[in-house]
Structures are given as structure tokens and as C-alpha cells.
């Protein structure tokens, strides 16, 4: 039932698109764009996983031919044995695909696009066409990066951080076209992300339904708003740096070329000035969605809503002044190291506040363990480990030992995999009915959860010990070093568990695909949640609401004494509620 949205907003009067192309490919509907981002980034998530498995094979069984390695070209893995230059491509592209083309689009591309208009009560994004352009730039960036895997000399190989001069000089890295394609793809992705962010910010500021005041917005929208601001201000710096790198690689400029006065540290400063806000872009949306899911699962209002909002803002603001903690050992001035250490120590505090608030939400709650709630609680449990292991690195003397070792790899996987990816598994299961009108299977969801949770910890926790022993990052063959030989059984154990972890993701993939067609039909409000999006049918029609709804309360009024059910939707008008004051602009509502 498609209803014509009847207000005078720009571009909402037209009918729902009918043709296949306008409806699914070149659609300006924020929900379709969200789903397009979903399929694109799930593909890249799978690709990143496959690259990781090849890395784990080489680390677990150095020099042995990889089963199925025969399909790889002779220049990369003769007879299935991975070569060092192919290994550092795997390292680089695993990091690049996962960070830029899987987790970031999944969190920001999918859920900002899908949730913001639905949760704020808007017809669509402020600029639907720019929103479509943002997807197609991300798609182009993804295809360019994908193509760089198959170019003759192979893909980029200077780590996802692409430190110059290794990334800038093909004679030193061994790859010319692959490195240039990396830079081009990142510039395109930067553009896509800027267009997306400006859309989300404008929609959140100006297009909230009447009554949806700033402090009645759900925390997921708050975190997406702050993430959009981080993205808006950080991505241009990365695009600028990638452009300078591209110029160094193509027309021979000298930005990062030491003999001609260029400074390799300039790249590190630019990259990490973007890099740290980027890692908060990768975690804040997950924190927001987890707050929504935990409140829903505990049937209890979020504990300390205002302090959660201020914690997000504090994380975002502090995120801009800590980038130097990635460069303690890089030859940067040590006194700078001290100031970055203090700001890094301070940034641990908002994370602690959020963690305790999640626990406060569950305290004396009525915990209902549907699959999203399990993932959300696992997020809190794993993010705590990731956050705590971050403190070891903030202490600069300790960082001297564990910088660029597997301790860092353990930390980043605990916050990115244990954090963002668990939250994403939960969020995809939670909003799947709103996207596709069907429920994902609860049984298979739980099986997938437990397998992933167990194997995930078996893979990444021992990496802390590898790091403490001094195992450097991005090492093709650890058995070259006498002090790493006793650790080789650990590496093999981690690799085996990694294969099992990867295998158990098949359950999620099958559950996701089969439920598209044979999943149980979704009721109107499957999770009994208060959000505006659950007042719409599943899946939601083009233009969302015919009449913009009015909002009477915050999003977390669970177990409210005013009603006997344990949830109270934001749009439900109780006798005691006043009609929200609407901006008078002379136009009939």
C-alpha cells in the first residue's frame, strides 16, 4: 500500500518509483540505498574474511602449500605456497577491505541510511539524489579496490595505513598500479562518505518529526549524528592525503620523498589525524545501536541517557586530539608523545561511563535474550576487553614494547570484531524484519552466536600473549626468529580456530539468505519496541509516513508505570500528553 507523502518538503510529492531500475538500482529511497549498502559491504566482509584465512594459513603453517592455493597465480603463490609479497598484499587488503569497505559502510552506510529517517519520523533523507550518489561513489571505490587485486603486479602492499615512502615508491614496494588504484579508490570512498555525512547531518538537524526534540532522539541516532560529524571532518583529510600520495605515485611530486625534502612523518600525521576519528566512526554507531537493543532487551529505560549522550560527544571531541598515540615510536618529538598520552588516558573515561551505563541498564531489568540482545551483551563484554587492552598502549613506556606487535592486533580485533561486528550481527537481526518483512531464524541465530563467540575468543585472546612475547606484526614467517619458535604452536592453534570461526559464519550467511524467502512473516512490532520505525508496516513503504507522526516522549519508556504493557511507543498519545508545538510557517499541516 503506497501512500503519497503529502507535505511540501522538497521532492517528496512524487509517486513511489515503479520500474525495476528506479526501484532497486538507481533508487533515491533511503531504505533501498541502505539495503544496497548492506549487500555491498557483506560481500566485502566475506572477501576480507577470505584474505584473512589465507594469512592465517601462512602464519599457522609457514611455507606449506595452501589447500585450494592452486587457483592463485604463479607470481603470488607458486604451487599454492604463499610468497612474501603476496602475504603483505593479504595484510594490506584484509585491513583495507574490512575497515573501509565492510565495517564502515555496514555501520554508517547501512544503518545511518536505513534508520535515521525511520527513527526521526522523516519521509526520506534531506537530499535523496546526493544520497544515491554517495552509494554509487562507494560502489565505484569498491570496484576499483577489488580490481586492484587482479592487476598484473598485484595489489597495494604497505599495510592498510599505507605508510610512505614504501607506498609512494613502486621500486621499493614492487607494486605500481596496485598502489595507485588504492589511492584512487580511497579518494572516491572519501567523497562518498562526505556526501553521506552531510546528508545525515542535515536530516537529523532539520527533519525531525514534531516532538522529537534533541533529547528524545534514540542513542543510535545520536551516535550516527556524531559519527556523521566525525566522518564529515575526517574523510576530507584522508582524501587530501591520498591525493598527495597519488601525486607522489604518478606525477613525481615529493610530498613524502625524503631525498627531495618530503617528510614520511607528514603522511603518518595526516593519516592518523583521520585515523583516530575513523576508529570512532567504526565504534560509535555500534555503541548507539547496542544501547537501543540493550534497553529493549532489558525492558528498561537506558541508564543515564544524558550522560550517554555527553559520553558520545566527549569521545568524538577527544577523538581529534589523540592521534599521536599511533606514533609514539615513529620518531615524533617525545614531548608530543607525553601530551598525546594524557589525552589518550582521558578518552578511556567516556568509554568507561558507557560501559557502566549499559550495565546499569541491565541492572534490575527483565532481561529477554533474543539474538540481538545476546550480541549486544557480547558486544559490551568484548568491548570492555578491547577498551582495557587499549590502556596498555596508552602508557607510553609499555607501548615501546607492544607497539606494532600482535598485542595491537588483539586490541583492534577486540574492538572491531568483538565490538562492531557483534553489534552488527545484532543490529542486522534486529532490523531485518523492517528491511525485508521476515524474521531471521532464532534457533540458527543462537547457534551462530555461540560458535562465533567461542571461536572468536579462542582466536584473538591468545594474540595478547603473542604480542607480550614481542611477536611483530605483518611477519610472513615467524619461524625465522629464535624467540618466536616456541610460540609457533600458538600461531597454529590460532589459525585452526580462525578457520572454524570463518566456517561458522556460513550459518549467519545461510540464515540471512534463506530467511529472505522462507523466514517467518514479521509481525508489526516483533521486538515490542518504542521506536517510530515500528509504527510502519514491514517492509516500510516509499516515503515512510503519509502524515508525519508526532512524538510525545523519549525512546526508552519501557516498563513505564503509566501503562500496563512493558513498552510505551514514542508516538502513542496518552491523555496526559500535550500536542508538540509545531513550527508555524503559514502552511497548512
Amino acid at each position, binding site marked *: 500500500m503506497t501512500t503519497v507523502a503529502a507535505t511540501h518538503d522538497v521532492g517528496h510529492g512524487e509517486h513511489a518509483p515503479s520500474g525495476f531500475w528506479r526501484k532497486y538500482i538507481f533508487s533515491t529511497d533511503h531504505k533501498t540505498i541502505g539495503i544496497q549498502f548492506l549487500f555491498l559491504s557483506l560481500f566485502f566482509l566475506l572477501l576480507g574474511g577470505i584474505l584473512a584465512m589465507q594469512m592465517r594459513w601462512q602464519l599457522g603453517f609457514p611455507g606449506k602449500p595452501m589447500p585450494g592455493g592452486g587457483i592463485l597465480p604463479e607470481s603470488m603463490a607458486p604451487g599454492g605456497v604463499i610468497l612474501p609479497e603476496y602475504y603483505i598484499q593479504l595484510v594490506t587488503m584484509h585491513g583495507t577491505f574490512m575497515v573501509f569497505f565492510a565495517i564502515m559502510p555496514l555501520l554508517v552506510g547501512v544503518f545511518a541510511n536505513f534508520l535515521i529517517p525511520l527513527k526521526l519520523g522523516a519521509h526520506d533523507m534531506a537530499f535523496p539524489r546526493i544520497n544515491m550518489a554517495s552509494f554509487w561513489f562507494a560502489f565505484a571505490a569498491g570496484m576499483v579496490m577489488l580490481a586492484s587485486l587482479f592487476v598484473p603486479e598485484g595489489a597495494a602492499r604497505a599495510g592498510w595505513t599505507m605508510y610512505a615512502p614504501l607506498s609512494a615508491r613502486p621500486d621499493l614496494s614492487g607494486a605500481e598500479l596496485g598502489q595507485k588504484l588504492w589511492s584512487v579508490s580511497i579518494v572516491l570512498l572519501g567523497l562518498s562518505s562526505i556526501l553521506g555525512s552531510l546528508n545525515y547531518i542535515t536530516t537529523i538537524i532539520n527533519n525531525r518529526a514534531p516532538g522529537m526534540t534533541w533529547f528524545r532522539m534514540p542513542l543510535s541516532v545520536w551516535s550516527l549524528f556524531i559519527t556523521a560529524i566525525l566522518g564529515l*571532518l575526517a574523510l576530507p583529510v584522508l582524501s587530501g592525503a591520498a591525493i598527495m600520495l597519488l*601525486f607522489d605515485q604518478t606525477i613525481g611530486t615529493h610530498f613524502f620523498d625524503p631525498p*627531495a625534502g618530503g617528510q614520511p612523518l*607528514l603522511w603518518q600525521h595526516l593519516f592518523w589525524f583521520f585515523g583516530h576519528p575513523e576508529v570512532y566512526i567504526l565504534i560509535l554507531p555500534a555503541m548507539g545501536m547496542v544501547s537501543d537493543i540493550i534497553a529493549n532487551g532489558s525492558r528498561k529505560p537506558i541508564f543515564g541517557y544524558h550522560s550517554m549522550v555527553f559520553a558520545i560527544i566527549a569521545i568524538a571531541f577527544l577523538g581529534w586530539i589523540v592521534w599521536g598515540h599511533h606514533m609514539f615510536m615513529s620518531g615524533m618529538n617525545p614531548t608530543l608523545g607525553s601530551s598525546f598520552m594524557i589525552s589518550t588516558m582521558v578518552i578511556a573515561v567516556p568509554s568507561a561511563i558507557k560501559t557502566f551505563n549499559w550495565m546499569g541498564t541491565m541492572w534490575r531489568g527483565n532481561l529477554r535474550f533474543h539474538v540481538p540482545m545476546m550480541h549486544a551483551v557480547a558486544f559490551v563484554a568484548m568491548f570492555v576487553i578491547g577498551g582495557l587492552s587499549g590502556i596498555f598502549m596508552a602508557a607510553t613506556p609499555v607501548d615501546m614494547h607492544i607497539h606494532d606487535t600482535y598485542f595491537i592486533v588483539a586490541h583492534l580485533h577486540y574492538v572491531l570484531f568483538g565490538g562492531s561486528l557483534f553489534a552488527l550481527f545484532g543490529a542486522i537481526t534486529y532490523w531485518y524484519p523492517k528491511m525485508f518483512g521476515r524474521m531471521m531464524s532464532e534457533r540458527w541465530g543462537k547457534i551462530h552466536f555461540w560458535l562465533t563467540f567461542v571461536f572468536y575468543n579462542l582466536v584473538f585472546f591468545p594474540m595478547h600473549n603473542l604480542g607480550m612475547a614481542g611477536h611483530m606484526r605483518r611477519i610472513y614467517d615467524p619461524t625465522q626468529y629464535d624467540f618466536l619458535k616456541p610460540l609457533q604452536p600458538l600461531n597454529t592453534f590460532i589459525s585452526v580456530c580462525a578457520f572454524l570461526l570463518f566456517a561458522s559464519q556460513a550459518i549467519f550467511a545461510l540464515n540471512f539468505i534463506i530467511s529472505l524467502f522462507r523466514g517467518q512473516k514479521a509481525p508489526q512490532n516483533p521486538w515490542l519496541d518504542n521506536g517510530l520505525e515500528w509504527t510502519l508496516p514491514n517492509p516500510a513503504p516509499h516515503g515512510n509516513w503519509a502524515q508525519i507522526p508526532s512524538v510525545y516522549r523519549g525512546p526508552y519508556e519501557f516498563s513505564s508505570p503509566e501503562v500496563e504493557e512493558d513498552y510505551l511507543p514514542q508516538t502513542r498519545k496518552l491523555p496526559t500528553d500535550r500536542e508538540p508545538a509545531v513550527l508555524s510557517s503559514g502552511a497548512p499541516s
Partner: protein
Amino acid sequence: MTHATASLMRPPFPAERGVDAHNLKLGMWVFLASEVMFFTALIGSYVILRFGAPGEWAKPGVVLNIPVTAFNTFLLICSSVSMVKAFAAISDGDQKMLKVWLLVTIIGGAMFVGIQAYEYTHLIHRGFLPSGVREGSELAELVANGTLPAATMGLYGSTFYAMTGFHGFHVTCGVVAMAYLYLFRVRRGKYSQQDYRGIEAVGLYWHFVDLVWIILFTIVYLI
């Protein structure tokens, strides 16, 4: 429900109070924030590279032609003024004067890009490349006889072409956008006193590009 006659220059309705600006204006301000960060990256790198340069920097005016660029700067400032006139015209509902002043602005912008392009070809002809100084060119002799510092000419070329190149690109985008508005919106009378949001947004963008050029002109050409 027909389209309301009320002015579209207000934020969308019905909505909770946000910023007192229509979506396009708010969107342009947010976009300009990201552009500020982009140029901060480029100019910041220029500053760091120049202060950390292994030798002293080339004197102003030796390589770059200051008089022509000064005129070019004046031209861009004038086109900013004509943009304000265009905006003032349409806010009083005067579509004819909007057409005139917008055309003046487009021509001003196009001339700026033209002069910049001419400057580039002239510089490249004299041997000034993004990678430094071409051997056997006129500038190579200046480097040889010491008027130009050999150690930093590589950086001098890289930073100059990156910053002014990208600024030129942004000016070109502005000219194209204004030409598009002129041909497909202004000439078809789409803008009225009730709705001139497009002009307001492009005007914001144009003033931003002009402001960036003033900063660039000072730090690249004059010091």
C-alpha cells in the same frame, strides 16, 4: 494536498525546530565544513613541508608571476561581489537583474580559471613542474646560478600545483554549477522571491572558494 504558497525559504515543515535555514543552505554549510578540512590538509602539509624544508624556500616573485595573479585575485573578488548583487536581486524578486549579475559572476569565474590555466602553461613552459624544475629549462639556469634554492624546488612545485590545482578545480566546479543553474533554472524563471534556495547555496560556495583563494594567494605567492 497542493504545494503550499508559503515561502520555501524556511526549514522543512512540519518538523521539530532545528536550524533556521532551509535544507539546501544547511547542507551547503555542512559541505563547506568538509571543504575547510580538505584545504586544511593541503595547506597544513604546505606549512609543515615549508618549515621543515632542507633549504631556504624560493623567494616570492622569482618563479610565480605576482602582478597577473594579483589581477586574477581582484577578478575573483569582483565575481564574489557580483554574486552578492545577484543574490540581492533575486531576494527582491528581480529575475532580470539576477540573470545579469549571475552571468557576470560566471564570466568572472571562467576568466579566473582561464588566467590560471594560462599561468600554468606559461610556468610549465619555463620549466616549473610538479616534480620540480625541468633540466635545461629557463628555471634550471636560475637554480644553477643560485637565485633559486635547488634543495627545495621539488617541494615548491609539488605544493604549488597541489593547492592551486585543487583550488582551480573547485572554481571550475563552481562555474559549471552556476552555468547549469543559469541555463536550466534562472532562464526558465524557476527562481522567485519565494524560492531562490539554489542561488543562496551556490553563493555560499562561491564566497568560500573566493576566501580560500585569498588565503592561498597570500601564503603561496606573497610570502
